């Protein structure tokens, strides 16, 4: 079974190689969490380092257990998030599949994706002895209260002061607006790529989306994603014109929930393709499509709103609503739910969501990076039975 490859993936590798090279030359860099408002960094020519993306890379390189071991030997529990364990492991190992991350000038953790990152970055701040800024976004279980937005809004201003102090540079308002505009354009271009999966058969799978998501995470606010995703879309349009699906004889359309199982991407892709099932979309990459609106004249206020009401920082009712929108939009027959040991805010509540969404679903137990938590036979049996039921 050979999977259909997108030309875009080669281009993506080049872009990301460039991104990592930039990191080695950058004068000032900040380690940031994936849901943090990176626009402020790019607007001040600060290079953002993404430990989570690095963790995904380690997972995809099947090096999770190897690098985790360096952290475990220091006393970090195997029950901690595997992104954190592997990244901390790499710091102690002094290397990684890409030769390690550049040492941080400062650390920036935003808890809109989890409170785990706050603890993880505290650990890093003690190792590197550099300043840590925590952007505290209240959890929006029901309504997004104005007091929440105000709290985050004020912290954004405080963060700018922090950045100006750490770097000795000044934030220019026009540069920030330009960066945010780029961010919006990039996010739109990326959304259009994902939306191509609406076609039947779908020209892409969520695995294509996973593999090619790094630019929207790491380079959001620069020109790169805008151009890259425009090209990727053209390639997908070409497939649509030819009536070519990402999976041959697409019979079943599925939605994926949670972070990918990075060390098994190919295995999953083949498993579904062989059974004429296509995972057309997922909740993970779609979490990056809601970023940044500028419908208010106060851009700090709209940034505060956007970054607080983010997929992992909202209550189950909101999450179910979002999943149901995807089910409807992509016309999927079923949902494959990854119960991810490493990600509690993403995984707890999944059993409830199963009852709240408008499609049948199956839960598989795994971990995003740590392959020791993966049982092939168990996952295979579950998925086989689920696909059988959907037919």
């Amino acid at each position, binding site marked *: 079974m050979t999977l259909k490859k997108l030309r875009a993936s080669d281009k993506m590798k080049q872009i990301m190689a460039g991104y990592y090279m930039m990191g080695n030359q950058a004068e000032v860099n900040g380690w940031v969490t994936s849901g943090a408002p990176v626009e402020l960094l790019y607007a001040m020519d600060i290079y953002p380092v993404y430990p989570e993306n690095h963790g995904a890379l380690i997972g995809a390189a099947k090096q999770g257990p190897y690098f985790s071991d360096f952290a475990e030997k220091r006393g970090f529990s195997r029950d901690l998030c595997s992104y954190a364990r592997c990244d901390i492991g790499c710091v102690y190992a002094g290397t990684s599949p890409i030769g390690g991350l550049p040492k941080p000038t400062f650390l920036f953790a935003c808890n809109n994706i989890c409170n785990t990152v706050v603890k*993880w970055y505290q650990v890093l701040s003690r190792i590197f002895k550099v300043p840590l800024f925590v952007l505290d976004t209240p959890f929006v279980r029901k309504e997004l*209260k104005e*007091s929440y937005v105000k709290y985050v809004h004020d912290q954004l201003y405080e963060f700018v002061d922090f950045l100006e102090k750490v770097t000795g540079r000044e934030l220019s308002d026009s540069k920030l607006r330009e960066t945010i505009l780029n961010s919006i354009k990039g996010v739109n271009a990326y959304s259009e790529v994902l939306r191509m999966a609406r076609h039947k058969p779908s020209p892409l799978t969520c695995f294509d989306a996973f593999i090619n998501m790094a630019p929207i995470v790491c380079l959001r606010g620069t020109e790169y994603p805008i151009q890259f995703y425009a090209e990727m879309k053209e390639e997908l349009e070409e497939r649509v014109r030819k009536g070519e699906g990402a999976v041959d004889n697409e019979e079943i359309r599925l939605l994926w929930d949670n972070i990918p199982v990075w060390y098994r991407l190919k295995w999953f892709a083949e498993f579904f393709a062989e059974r004429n099932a296509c995972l057309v979309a997922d909740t993970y990459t779609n979490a990056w499509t809601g970023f940044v609106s500028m419908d208010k004249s106060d851009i700090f206020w709209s940034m505060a709103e956007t970054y607080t009401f983010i997929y992992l920082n909202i209550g*189950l009712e909101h999450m179910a609503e979002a999943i149901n929108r995807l089910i409807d939009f992509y016309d999927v027959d079923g949902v494959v739910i990854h119960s991810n040991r490493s990600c509690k805010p993403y995984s707890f509540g999944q059993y409830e969501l199963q009852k709240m969404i408008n499609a049948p679903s199956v839960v598989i137990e795994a971990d995003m990076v740590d392959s020791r938590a993966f049982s092939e036979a168990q996952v295979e049996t579950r998925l086989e039975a689920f696909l059988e039921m959907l037919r």
Partner: protein
Amino acid sequence: MNVGYLCTYTPKELIDAAGFTPIRIFAGDAQISLATAHIQSYACSQARGSFERALRGELDVQAVVFTRCCDTLMRLADIWERNTEMKVYNLEFPTRVEEKSKEFYFNELKDFVKVLEEWGGEVTLESLKESFSLYYELEEKLKKLFSIKPDYDTAKKVQEMNVRDAIKLVDERLREAEGEDKKPRVLITGSVCPFVEVYKLFEDAGFALKDDICTGTRFFTFNTPPRDIGSVDEGLRFLVEKYFDKAPCPTKHFPKDDRFNYVLELAKDCDGVVFLLLKFCEPHFYDYPQLKERLEEMGKKVLLLELEFPIASYEQLRTRIEAFYEVIA
């Protein structure tokens, strides 16, 4: 009405002042079975065990207040609401505990007062003053009791009863309390442990105890004596001060690393430190390696005990605690 809560950052005073009884929810003795259909096994057994009791109908509480202290509690609120008859409210205690977060928390408390009123309660200046003074009395008396000899049985019980009864209970225990002869002293640090038999194992082994446990000393270690208040809002401002300045918990972010400094200070007059950690408790497990290193630099012996509730084998724990005693004594 009884209002349940799980986290010590819950302002019990407000619940009491509204005319309700705040009741702390702990995991129980029964094996966890019903909860497994609602939350994964890699949630800590305090979360699963507490929810198990709710599902079994063992809790006499009609509402529950959650705080977003960790990722597990954050999600548990919704799961709880969907599967019980109880009212559920989420009070956002900021993760960043510092001057600049105070206004936000003050607003959260104002919103909480409204919710308590929707539940049929009423917070007045008089009721607030009374609750403040009662809780202060309870906290000071518990401090006194623990300074004579830590009493985990009492500490647990007071968290499950009305503050007025709790004061009477502590008064009784204070009358009986006796100090101990000099023994090697151990600091027990960790998250929750409502199973008082565990502390008994330490005493049996020959240790004098000191603790930094969420269900023990952290429950009553506040540093803000009541002051005269002229309005409910002033009372809420007082609560902000009180809770921001309580014994620090690892779920929070303190710009000056207050949490580490607090534990290191507590450890100074102890001979050893035991990390009594609940499996899957991320906030504590992230701190553990670096905190352990700092403690060892101070010359302290350190032991890690990982627990799951209900506790499967006390004997196994006993063996490890006795071995640790041998190392120290």
